[in-house]
């Protein structure tokens, strides 16, 4: 077993275990924290795959911003294990069964792929910010701009939705 494989296994166990903990823990705050751990594990995988830039962006965006927002909202609402709505057992069982069946069936489908043709071609430079930047601003300028517009509209949308309604004084 090479060191890469050991790291891969460690990160995988960490990711899967944390993901499981996330969906099983009763307390939403714990769920958020477990999800952060998952993101760290995934970032680790990115580094392993020579995508250093993506790894750090993943941390900054997901762990540093998105999950903080989640945590923020959870804390604002003061959600905890007592207020957590619980689904009934039967539905949970159906959910787990069907989800598991889906996983098994996709894995069985994937196992038919001929992996011999797949070759590792990335020597490590494709994850560099320079290469990514060139590609992004040369070949994907339009999608980039469009996604920025999307992002702006989402920002405005969030502000509009979250705005406190003007309270009618007469009421």
């Amino acid at each position, binding site marked *: 077993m090479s060191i890469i494989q050991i790291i891969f296994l460690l990160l995988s166990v960490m990711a899967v275990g944390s993901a499981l903990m996330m969906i099983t823990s009763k307390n939403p705050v714990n769920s958020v924290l477990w999800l952060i751990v998952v993101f760290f594990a995934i970032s680790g995988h990115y580094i392993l795959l020579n995508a250093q830039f993506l790894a750090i962006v993943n941390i900054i965006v997901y762990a540093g911003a998105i999950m903080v927002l989640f945590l923020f909202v959870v804390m604002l609402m003061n959600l905890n294990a007592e207020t957590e709505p619980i689904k009934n057992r039967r539905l949970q069982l159906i959910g787990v069964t069907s*989800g598991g069946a889906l996983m098994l069936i996709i894995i069985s489908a994937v196992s038919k792929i001929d992996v011999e043709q797949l070759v590792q071609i990335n020597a490590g430079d494709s994850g560099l910010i320079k290469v990514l930047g060139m590609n992004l601003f040369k070949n994907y300028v339009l999608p980039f701009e469009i996604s920025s517009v999307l992002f702006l509209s989402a920002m405005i949308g969030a502000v509009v939705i979250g705005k406190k309604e003007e309270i009618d004084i007469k009421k």
Partner: protein
Amino acid sequence: MDIKAYIILSLVLFTIGIVGVLVRRNAIIIFMCVELMLNAVNLLLVAFSKMHAMSTAAKASANFASDAQIFVFFIMVVAAAEVSVGLAIIVMMYRNVHTVDVNFLNRLKN
């Protein structure tokens, strides 16, 4: 690493996300499960950016490998936009009905 290991890993993560959506009623947790699914896809994309069939198209294009990572960026952008709007909606929902139970919102009115 074998590409199959990554495929299976992302599949497992993706499925955990699906199962999470199915078994939880808390809107925020469901939301997080969606994020988890997105990340599983991202992981797979990055894995494919490193390893894929050496087609002639791949050889011809200099930045073929980084294409997949660019897509990861776009997915992140979409995820961030989604989270900003989605969380705003959840906060409004909580403000109005004082719960984050998605089953509570099963009708359009009231």
